[in-house]
């Protein structure tokens, strides 16, 4: 009796291991092959421009508005704390460093996953469900090259540019709140910022982060769409997975990248 229960438990563990862990390994390997094929797939320049418009340009508004408000809030909170110590002239430094190093890349990537990543997944998923991808490959055109690759590269290219825009808008937002509303001296705001921000250490590292995030988020998005179960529920699950996996990957990778770049 006890042995039977023991075997049952062992069996269910085995099944759990097989489905979850081995399934994950298999998925991960398949997505690796997938992204390699995508990276080296040649495609027309025109398709890339179309996709940069769809994933990049159309994400501009949400990125800019979010950046502005994050700048506002950071300015307010920073002023509240720093002014207690009479250090409010260092607000420029606080804003610029926190935004270029962390908030810019991370928040842009999270917003990008929600706005563009989910759209990519559901678009590709629906193309799969309606057999458009199959009909394309039956015409001798590789969908990885014609559909996936331009979207993938558009994401990788758009993300650093969006991050730059986000950071610039957020710093401007912080500037308006702190200088024009709370009365911080404009000269000390900008000069402290200039003195403390290093292009290579801060701005460039932030851009490298955003490039990594762009790669990972777009990879997850197109892979989830390409491998989704071809039903309406399957698309819904794939879209959810895109946002969840992307967010987790962004936050996890951010820790490692920060440790690599800024850790001692």
């Amino acid at each position, binding site marked *: 009796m006890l042995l039977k229960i023991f075997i049952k438990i062992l069996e269910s563990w085995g099944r759990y291991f097989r489905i979850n862990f081995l399934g994950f390994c298999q998925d991960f390997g398949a997505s690796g092959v997938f992204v390699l094929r995508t990276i080296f797939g040649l495609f027309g320049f025109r398709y890339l421009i179309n996709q940069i418009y769809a994933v990049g340009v159309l994400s501009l508004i949400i990125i800019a508005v979010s950046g502005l408000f994050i700048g506002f809030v950071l300015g307010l909170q920073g002023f509240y704390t720093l002014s207690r110590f009479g250090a409010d002239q260092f607000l420029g430094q606080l804003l610029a460093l926190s935004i270029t190093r962390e908030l810019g890349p991370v928040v842009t990537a999270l917003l990008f996953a929600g706005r563009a990543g989910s759209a990519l997944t559901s678009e590709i998923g629906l193309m799969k469900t309606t057999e458009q991808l*199959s009909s394309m490959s039956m015409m*001798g*055109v590789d969908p990885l090259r014609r559909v996936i690759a331009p979207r993938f590269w558009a994401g990788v290219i758009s993300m650093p540019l969006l991050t730059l825009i986000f950071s610039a808008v957020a710093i401007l937002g912080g500037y308006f709140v702190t200088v024009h509303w709370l009365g911080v001296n404009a000269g000390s705001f900008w000069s402290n910022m200039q003195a403390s921000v290093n292009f290579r250490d801060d701005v460039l590292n932030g851009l490298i982060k955003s490039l990594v995030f762009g790669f990972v988020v777009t990879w997850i998005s197109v892979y989830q769409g390409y491998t989704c179960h071809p039903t309406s529920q399957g698309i819904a699950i794939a879209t959810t997975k895109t946002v969840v996996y992307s967010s987790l990957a962004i936050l996890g990778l951010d820790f490692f990248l920060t440790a690599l770049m800024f850790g001692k």
Partner: protein
Amino acid sequence: MKSELNAEDPVVVLKDVVFSRGEKLIFKGINLSIQPGKITAIMGPSGTGKTTLLQLMGGLLTPSSGEVKVLGNTVADLSRGDLFSLRQRMGLLFQSGALFTDMTVFENVAFALREHTQLPESMIRDIVLMKLQAVGLRGARNLYPSELSGGMARRVALARAVALDPEILMYDEPFTGQDPISMGVLIKLIKTLNQAMGLTSIIVSHDVHEVCSIADDVFILSDGLIIAHGTPEEILKDPDPKTRQFMLGEPDGPVAFDYPAPDLYFDFDLKDKT
């Protein structure tokens, strides 16, 4: 992709093809060969895997065991690039049409030409309009797929499938959802295309009368096996009860209409069978 065929060799050969989807065995060993220049029909009840058979021929699926040879090439052995160039020589008309929804009818038909040829735009325009004229939709060139009826979408898909003048054309249920007029036109079209372009046509369908009116060769598929093969006349005279039931559309016979289910008495909670 080197091997070429002689004129009389079969263009598609399936040898002992076994295929299963998950736990379910769909094909238990299919053997068939498709002769060049003919219209071959593959018929069978719904759910016997007729569409799957076409996907195996097109290399969209790989058999669990056995061999699929198309135009002399073993599909499973081809590299990715060779498989895509082989597919340029065959066309598949999907049941749903599978048109690209973000392109107009014109762009859909022009798609393969633009991808695979370096033809000037003016020539592409002429070819596309000729193909659309053949299916009677030259006037619909600027419509989007969402503005087409199901039957029209299928005809656009047909124009798109023949855009590159393939050697093999596969039709997946071309007659479902067509009104009597377009049905008549379509039947004539398939026949004409086959003769005029020297195509080999493979039709997967369960519309017995329409198919028998144009097919040269018929295979009947049931329970994962080919149960009959011959000209339409031979098939109609086939004494095998399964074939007879299918060809004559009889409700009772060896092929069950009902999906396997528990006993009626059990499902409706009846106490005894009296």
